[in-house]
């Protein structure tokens, strides 16, 4: 058994991963709130919160800035809870400013034709931008608990690889290879490239058009100065992800596809040596089996409460409740079997915790705290 409060106490950074629609945002917010209740200064970085949850957290009023959540309704909260929503484009421009060696270099890039078209593609990769923002928040020194709610990604851990992709492409070797014909042209007034490279360039021109290659060369010349900045940044982000006080929490719901994704995440995290804290299964249905006593109690209660209602009501509702109970029990059994397969597959990957489906939506601090009670209240199994 594992005490999740003890786990959270020694964790500084929590990254929630999992497929869409499994309550990842709720889990992230519940973890942040639990931290605040324990006296931490917590911030939750979220991508796309459900409207009512966002409203209750005061997220509707803000645009990409950390906002402090009013916890006065929870007088026992000794810490702070902050939340912010990811602003992809703003984060990307800030990143460029950050890695630029000078304001002039930054302005040249920001004005570049290729950059302006490419920035949308990169900023569109919310996963990459989320990692960037996470690094900012974690190194700001203002918070001692940072929780990230990751966007659902197509290929699992893409968000860790995007920064690497920039660094790989922009490494010195490929930059020199690509820019060689352009730079020599500048000096000698003609292309001196021979052999394979010249042939390849001709082919690339054939595929992409010469105009694009020229535009791209201009862009890469400006971008070259930013390479070191990108590389350092990437290394810093990766060491933050692997730090001992960082934890990845895999979140899923009890359905086949999301459990499948969760299993996949557990494997991929292990492969990359990323710290796995454990697995949370959200929205688990609970329903006890019924016996003769229950049937009798129901019959009596229905009879007593339906005297002023149309005569058939008692009978039809009784039949309906019976059918609903059978269906709900079947669902509970099916979920239990699925969760069992995940528990077996997650062995050695940290804790395993189930959170029951909350009746009504989680849309205020009180219900969010209730989720936290389930998540942290009972000692979790070790998977």
């Amino acid at each position: 058994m594992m005490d999740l409060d003890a786990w959270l106490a020694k964790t500084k950074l929590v990254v929630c991963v999992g497929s869409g629609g499994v309550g990842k945002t709720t889990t992230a917010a519940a973890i942040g709130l639990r931290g605040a209740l324990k006296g931490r200064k917590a911030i939750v970085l979220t991508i796309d919160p459900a409207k009512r949850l966002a409203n209750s957290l005061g997220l509707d009023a803000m645009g990409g800035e950390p906002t402090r959540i009013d916890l006065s309704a929870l007088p026992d909260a000794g810490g702070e809870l902050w939340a912010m929503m990811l602003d992809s484009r703003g984060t990307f421009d800030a990143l460029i400013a950050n890695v630029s060696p000078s304001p002039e270099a930054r302005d040249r890039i920001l004005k570049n034709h290729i950059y302006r078209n490419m920035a949308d593609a990169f900023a569109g990769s919310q996963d990459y931008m989320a990692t960037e923002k996470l690094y900012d928040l974690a190194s700001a020194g203002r918070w001692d608990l940072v929780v990230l709610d990751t966007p659902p990604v197509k290929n699992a851990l893409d968000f860790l690889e995007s920064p690497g992709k920039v660094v790989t492409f922009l490494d010195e070797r490929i930059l020199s290879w690509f820019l060689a014909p352009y730079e020599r042209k500048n000096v000698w007034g003609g292309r001196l490239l021979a052999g394979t490279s010249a042939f390849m360039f001709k082919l690339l021109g054939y595929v992409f058009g010469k105009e694009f290659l020229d535009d791209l060369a201009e862009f890469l010349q400006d971008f070259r100065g930013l390479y070191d900045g990108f590389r350092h940044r990437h290394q810093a982000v990766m060491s933050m992800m692997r730090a001992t006080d960082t934890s990845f929490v895999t979140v899923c719901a009890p359905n086949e596809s999301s459990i499948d994704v969760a299993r996949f995440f557990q494997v991929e995290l292990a492969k990359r040596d990323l710290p796995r804290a454990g697995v949370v299964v959200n929205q688990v249905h609970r329903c006890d089996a019924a016996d003769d006593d229950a049937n009798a109690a129901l019959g009596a209660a229905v009879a007593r409460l339906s005297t002023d209602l149309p005569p058939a009501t008692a009978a039809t509702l009784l039949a309906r409740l019976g059918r609903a109970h059978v269906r709900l029990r079947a669902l509970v059994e099916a979920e239990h079997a699925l969760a069992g397969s995940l528990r077996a597959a997650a062995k050695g990957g940290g804790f395993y915790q189930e959170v029951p489906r909350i009746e009504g939506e989680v849309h205020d601090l009180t219900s969010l705290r209730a989720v936290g009670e389930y998540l942290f209240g009972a000692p979790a199994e070790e998977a």
Partner: protein
Amino acid sequence: MDLGGLLQDRVVLVTGKGGTGKTTYASAIALLLAARGRRTVLCELDSQRPSLTGVFGREPDFHPLRVAPNLDVCNLTWPHTLVAYLERMIRVGPIVKAILSNEMVRRFLDFTPGANEIVTLSVLADLREKYDVVVVDMPASGHAFSLLDITRSALGLFRAGPVRARVEELRVMIQAPTSRMVLVALPEEMVVNETLETLARLQGGQLLGGKPIVVLNRAIAPSLSAAEKTLLDRLSAEAAPGDAEEFVAAGRWDRVLEESAAEAQTRITEALGEAPILVPPSGVGGNPREVVRSVAIQLGRHLGVSKHDFTWGA
């Protein structure tokens, strides 16, 4: 909402939030169109673990595989899509090989923004020439937009040249009235939110020519009477219902399902201007093949196909 338009469509993109049943609906629609005599190809996009395998019992490959009369399936994997694209542009096999064997070029292509989207769309256009209709099982709504948006953003990136010329052709293709999106939704707040956002982005037909179709999956039709609701409320309010609590909780659960289906239907109808297609829970458990069969029977009623008209695989 009328599904009849699907019979004239050339490109059908099936999308929606994760876990809504995109693969099920893409498969069911493809089976029905094939049953109506349309030469149909059903594609997955660069899937590492293709979901169509569970439906058709065989893993789809880049090269279309026949799974039923008039129906082929495939998985448009990278770099096969890139090879197909380069072969179309260059038309000399050995030169394509030379390009792809150069490490610098490969890294360049890997990095070039939008390269994956352009070649994927280009391969879909090629398939559209070979078949009557291309049905695509998209990964998620967001990804669907990055595929469609590329026909706009690439025009900014490529100011002239062969890529631009191809992108212009692709833009004409997706703006044709026979190119359509089918959105699969569930009666859950977050899913409906995303569905409405997607509909808003499609408004005006700038991105995709055809009018979107929305399917509300696993929607339970309302059947609780007012008196039954009153009685259920009273049971819930009982301070100590004793041992009957599990029945009452099951009743409340059942009611929530019904009410969220009604709410989802109202919100979608408001945004779409007409009611979505409602499909009740299949009740056949987790076997993808059986779920597809059940959904195809439901949708078949809108397309004049009876359950005896479609068969597939072993």
